[in-house]
């Protein structure tokens, strides 16, 4: 009995500690920012235009991602073709693709020196330029169109095949088909997908850093960075951070009210059995081709350009790799411990705990790395030189950024294991040791591996707080890539991108593979 009470107390302490750490990170840093900020009066014309631009680009990016996602998802749901499964898997890739690599790839296709500009000059037109607003929106659509498409495709795959058949057997017109099948589907998926993409575009930083800037292309995150690094105006950075925190808070509350789409990816592989496929083949394959090209060309461009220049990279690529991998591993350990602690503490509690856990996940999504970074800087600044702590701070902020996704993977698995086996445990009177080592951990091995892979890959690709804190001597791979881009050494940048992607994928693969290795797992 005493043993049981101790276990419960331990679990509460564990869960509570994680919660406290999270609150310190999100709310605590916000308080630090609020007390140091100089109020809204300090914000100039440029800052207000940054706020307007942030909201506008997030709205437009989310709108475009979801709107284009609809015909793409419809085509994928309707048509059977060779490579369909591969394309659906590829739709998941931008999620773990380092943002800066994606941006570099987009520049290689859409930039001034990109493929499309080459064709345009050759045919006598002006070159494209995507710096500023077009680049920010293009990159956000590049990263979020696949995400929105996956959510929508999931929506389509939850429609029972009988329902399609009922509609067919009624000889329904296209309009009736829309009202009977697609309208209810879109109504249930689109608001959540829009909100999620909006949130991601609101807090995205690396895209704005790489292609944003200027009076019509600066986001709040970028403005915080510039106030910090260029002007060293901490008060202004704090004021901006407060605005960003408030915006994210409002969206987070909305996200709590609208159910966000689930990201488990189940059911996406179901093959379509649709008679109407042949009638729409032309349109559908146009959308499939456009979206596949939009995804594959930028990545291909980098691979082609970068592979040949890997040998010419300076030796710093080694130290940068080691730094990146170490940060990623540390961040993975922290992230997974937090996620496991929270899942074990909350998975078995009632509705309140479930809402709390859900709220934590959304809080993590709505937390901007630069706000947290500014807050931490302000907290440390009076006592020590914050740059000294660049590595631990980066690792922990990255862990927190990956936490919502890790929770999404782990929480249901823990809940399911308890639901399926708790009665068995009680009836067999299994000891805690056997329960933990023979049932719980083996059952969780696969989601743990997947979550760890996500956390590691997300941290590998991160270009957020590290940009805020790093001094010139400290370098991670994304930072090195960004600095090479800034120096217009695009060949070497592409080579670093190849190295970075290879290492991210290797880390993801290792963890994910490790989770699958257990012989007894289904």
């Amino acid at each position: 009995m005493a043993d049981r009470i101790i276990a419960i107390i331990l679990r509460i302490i564990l869960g509570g500690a994680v919660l406290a750490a999270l609150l310190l990170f999100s709310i605590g840093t916000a308080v630090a920012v609020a007390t140091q900020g100089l109020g809204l009066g300090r914000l100039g014309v440029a800052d207000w235009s940054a706020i307007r631009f942030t909201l506008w680009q997030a709205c437009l990016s989310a709108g475009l991602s979801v709107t284009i996602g609809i015909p793409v998802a419809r085509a994928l749901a309707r048509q059977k073709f060779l490579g369909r499964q591969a394309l659906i898997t590829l739709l998941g890739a931008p999620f773990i693709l380092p943002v800066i690599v994606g941006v570099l790839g987009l520049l290689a296709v859409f930039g001034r020196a990109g493929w499309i500009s080459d064709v345009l000059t050759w045919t006598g037109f002006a070159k494209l330029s995507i710096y500023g607003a077009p680049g920010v929106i293009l990159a956000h659509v590049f990263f979020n169109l696949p995400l929105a498409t996956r959510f929508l495709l999931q929506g389509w795959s939850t429609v029972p095949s009988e329902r399609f058949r009922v509609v067919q057997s009624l000889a329904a017109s296209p309009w009736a088909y829309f009202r009977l099948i697609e309208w209810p589907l879109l109504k249930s998926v689109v608001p959540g997908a829009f909100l999620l993409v909006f949130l991601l575009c609101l807090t995205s930083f690396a895209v704005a850093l790489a292609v944003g800037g200027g009076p019509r292309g600066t986001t709040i995150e970028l403005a915080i960075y510039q106030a910090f690094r260029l002007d060293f105006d901490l008060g202004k950075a704090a004021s901006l951070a407060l605005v960003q925190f408030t915006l994210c808070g409002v969206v987070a509350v909305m996200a709590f009210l609208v159910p966000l789409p689930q990201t488990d990816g189940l059911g996406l592989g179901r093959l379509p059995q649709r008679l109407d496929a042949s009638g729409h083949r032309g349109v559908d394959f146009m959308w499939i081709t456009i979206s596949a090209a939009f995804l594959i060309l930028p990545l291909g461009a980098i691979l082609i350009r970068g592979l040949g220049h890997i040998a010419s990279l300076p030796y710093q690529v080694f130290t940068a790799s080691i730094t990146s991998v170490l940060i990623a591993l540390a961040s993975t350990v922290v992230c997974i411990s937090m996620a496991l602690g929270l899942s074990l503490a909350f998975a078995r509690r009632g509705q309140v705990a479930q809402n709390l856990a859900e709220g934590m996940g959304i809080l993590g999504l709505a937390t901007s790395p630069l706000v947290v970074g500014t807050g931490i800087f302000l907290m440390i600044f009076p006592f020590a030189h914050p740059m000294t702590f660049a590595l631990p701070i980066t690792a922990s902020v990255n862990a927190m950024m990956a936490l919502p996704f890790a929770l999404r993977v782990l929480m249901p698995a823990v809940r399911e294991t308890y639901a399926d086996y708790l009665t068995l445990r009680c009836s067999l009177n299994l000891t805690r040791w056997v329960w933990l080592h023979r049932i719980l951990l083996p059952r969780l091995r696969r989601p743990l591996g997947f979550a760890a892979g996500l956390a590691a890959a997300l941290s590998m690709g991160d270009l957020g707080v590290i940009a805020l804190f790093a001094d010139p001597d400290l370098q991670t791979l994304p930072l090195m890539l960004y600095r090479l881009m800034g120096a217009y050494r695009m060949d070497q940048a592409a080579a670093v991108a190849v190295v970075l992607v290879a290492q991210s994928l290797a880390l993801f693969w290792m963890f994910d593979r490790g989770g699958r290795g257990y012989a007894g797992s289904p």
Partner: protein
Amino acid sequence: MLALHKVQFRQGDFTLGADLLIPTGARVAVIGPSGGGKSTFLNGIAGFIATDGGQVLWQGQPMPDHPGLRPLSILFQDHNLFPHLNVMDNVAIGISPDMRLSQTQKQQVRTALDQVGLSDKSASYPRDLSGGQQGRVGLARMLLRQRPLLLLDEPFSALGPALKDEMLDVLRQILHVTSATALMVTHDPKDALAFANQAILVADGVAMAPQPIQQLFDAPPPALRAYLGHWT
């Protein structure tokens, strides 16, 4: 007369062969082991599965390719109703998928609901109905459509015995009113006997010609005997 002339229905790797005639007005139970092709048989006649050779004829004419143009109504085990439409609309789409009904059509929908005993539920949504009531909404749609051929793919198998009997009663009334030809997949020999006068055995990728149901049960071929076990 429904005629399947040397038809092959192909669904993935599975092929079902059928070469048989069903007289107009017949009530046919489609029985056989699971995985034998019962649903493929019905979905093939309904036009959801392409034929791989052979012809499906109704009253001597080849059936149109599009399922919606075939002279039939089909009812599945689940998902016959649209959760976002109320009972009235769920029935009305049977004659007007656009849900633009004339006064006469509205009256027809109300009559159909009345006949299945759901006139007071027309504004309810499927989630507020019991399983039996949902089944009756599907039957009301069938009744409204007035098609001469009815296909039923185990529509009542999730219901308890009493409810199932009730549904079969409603179905018998509909058949009495419309004098339609009906094919019903069932895995319950009791239902088959209660509903049908003929039976088609579907096993091992072949749909056999219909036989009088009592005769089939009295002297079951090996495939049916293995399926029925010691039922008789």
